[in-house]
């Protein structure tokens, strides 16, 4: 009996443990290779600053993947959100508050439509969200062709707001104390991680996501409304893509059709590295968070190790994804036996 319990522990948490270990190994590796740069707290915080949007969209991606679905439209949605908000703020002199509402609404709209097609019409999530991705990218161009920086004062003010993290500051070369800071997006990301961790752990809806992903037929037999659950998963993913898009927008401060390119890929990779199974039913928001951190750390290592040409980033992410996919596949196949 005891043995069995032990095995179940390994089964559910093995992937998470691997992820956290991979992250720490990588970060230690970075410190060894790159030296002091990575020892500064601000370096770590900058990773957070640059990836807050990715953390948020990855949370949504994990939820959809736990229900055994996928959503590759998130990058497109983020770009569309950036562009719409940028146009609204600059050309229509809009308020920051309304721009946030717009972002959320765009995300929700994608979530609702894609969720409906997947859950209630039974269309493959990949096809639906592939169309969603192309639609969002196309719409971004239709909204405005040329990239531009937002000059709206209120927005620029919000963008440059820095939240000081006490106690992590360092002395700079001149011996002056410099505060460590994070951007507002990071606060939003952390809140969302906490909220969705709790949602998945302690809410009925969260457990229904797992049940549906584990075995759809069984979930139905157990009295779960499978269609509604899948719909809500896509809805949440769309919503988080909208919010993530706004945080991205807040970080870059401009609208462009080529924004957030490859974000869907990074989000999927982060979720998978974080221990979410493609086959559904297994996954964890904390794991996803570490997935994002691992991914961005290795990207930092690659770029600061002299491979700063743009193409290395894509190759690195793809390589990581490939390795983890194969590991997952091997583990799953062994389990079956």
């Amino acid at each position, binding site marked *: 009996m005891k043995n069995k319990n032990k095995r179940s522990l390994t089964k559910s948490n093995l992937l998470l443990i691997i992820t956290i270990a991979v992250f720490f190994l990588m970060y230690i590796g970075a410190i060894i290779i790159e030296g002091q740069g990575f020892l500064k707290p601000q370096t770590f915080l900058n990773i957070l600053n640059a990836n807050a949007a990715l953390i948020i969209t990855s949370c949504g991606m994990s939820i959809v993947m736990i229900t055994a679905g*996928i959503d*590759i439209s998130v990058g497109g949605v983020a770009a569309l959100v950036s562009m719409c908000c940028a146009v609204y703020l600059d050309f229509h002199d809009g308020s920051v508050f309304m721009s946030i509402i717009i972002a959320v609404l765009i995300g929700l709209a994608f979530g609702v439509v894609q969720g409906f*097609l997947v859950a*209630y*019409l*039974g*269309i*493959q999530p*990949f*096809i*639906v969200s*592939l*169309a*969603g*991705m*192309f*639609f969002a*990218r*196309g*719409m971004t*161009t*239709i909204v405005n*062709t040329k990239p531009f920086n937002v000059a709206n004062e209120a927005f620029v003010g919000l963008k440059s707001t820095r939240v000081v993290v006490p106690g992590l500051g360092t002395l700079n070369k001149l011996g002056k104390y410099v505060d460590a800071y994070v951007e507002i997006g990071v606060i939003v990301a952390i809140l969302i991680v906490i909220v969705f961790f709790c949602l998945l752990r302690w809410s009925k809806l969260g457990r229904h996501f797992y049940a549906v992903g584990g075995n759809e037929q069984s979930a139905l037999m157990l009295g779960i409304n499978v269609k509604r659950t899948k719909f809500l998963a896509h809805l949440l993913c769309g919503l988080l893509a909208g919010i993530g898009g706004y945080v991205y927008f807040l970080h870059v401060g401009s609208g462009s*059709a080529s924004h957030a390119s*490859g974000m869907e*890929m990074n989000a*999927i990779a982060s979720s998978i590295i974080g221990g979410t199974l*493609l086959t559904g039913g297994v996954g964890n928001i904390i794991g996803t968070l570490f997935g994002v951190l691992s991914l961005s750390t290795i990207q930092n290592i690659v770029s600061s190790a002299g491979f700063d*040409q*743009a*193409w*290395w*980033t*894509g*190759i690195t*992410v*793809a*390589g990581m*994804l*490939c390795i983890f*996919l*194969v590991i997952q*596949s*091997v583990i799953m*196949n062994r389990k079956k036996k």
Partner: protein
Amino acid sequence: MGKTIAKKSDHVNALKSLIGNQIFIPIAALLLLVIFHLIMDPSFFAIKMGTNSAGNAVLSGYLITILDSGSELAILAIGMTLVTAASGGQDISVGATIAIAGSVILRVLCGTNSRPDSLQAPIIVAFLVACVAGMLCGAFNGILVAKFKIQPMVATLILFTAGRSIAAWINNNELPVISDKTFTYFGEYIPGIPIPTPFFIAMACVLVIALVLKFTNLRLYIQSVGINEGASKLNGLNPAFVKFLSFVILGLCVAVAGLIKVSRISTINYSVIAKDIEMDAILAVALGGNALGGGKFNMTASILGAYVIQCLTTTLYKFNVQSDALPAYKAVVVIALVVFSAPMVKEKAAELGKKIKKNKKAGEVA
């Protein structure tokens, strides 16, 4: 009296079987586009004889444009149809692997110098190397799908992201330019022939696949594996190999399409070459009435579907839609297509039809 009724129902049946036929979908879509243009602007169908920049007498007009620029798509549709049928998923990396194949061709032709005065290798050698590269990419996807049993779309997501970076890396991010005129023959015109060469290449590929389907069991094997893997295995097939093979064939198609793409402009733009073509290829397969979940396929319908998509693209261009905005319109078409072919929607429609019939009958009785 009875005879006429029987005849009538024969006609109805013939009509039904036509509508029920897969190929009806792309033909209907094509007719729709044709009618649209006949009403809007019949000059769409005009074909003129003119001279191009190289001084050759060539045909021009929208129809020629469709036949010309639809070539890559038609070639890809061949491979995509096989992959879809065998694996029940689609390869979304074709655009990125075209970039790889194109980059390989330029690399071989230019050698280390990015702007050579003369070709460093025969074109045929460059093409063969590109074929190998394309098939390797296909094999990579194929192994992930067939051996590691990863969903095709996720497995191909890897090359989808990395492909263009790899393409840039192959040429050290330089942009080789080929000055040799013979290289343009593949993407433009052969002197003296007024029809663009890509069309001939596409037709050659169609011919090859038609012969392969006729003289081998490829169709039977792929359909069996796509419909029922377990049963195929018990009948001596190797499902993993059949899936792998379909991806390798697609890789070959990608290499051919890559040759045409780079030959058209004699150089390459890594981030733009064959952009969004995966969407069009999937759309062609779907428009051909092939189930995206795998199983039976109709190659003719897919290829016809490819040209219909190109027709749609050309139409949108004609109405001054920007190329970056095209995907938005096509995405709507994709969704419309999959929604109409979704089993659940079909069921609902059938139910509705039954109800209407019932009501009619009830009305008649009353």
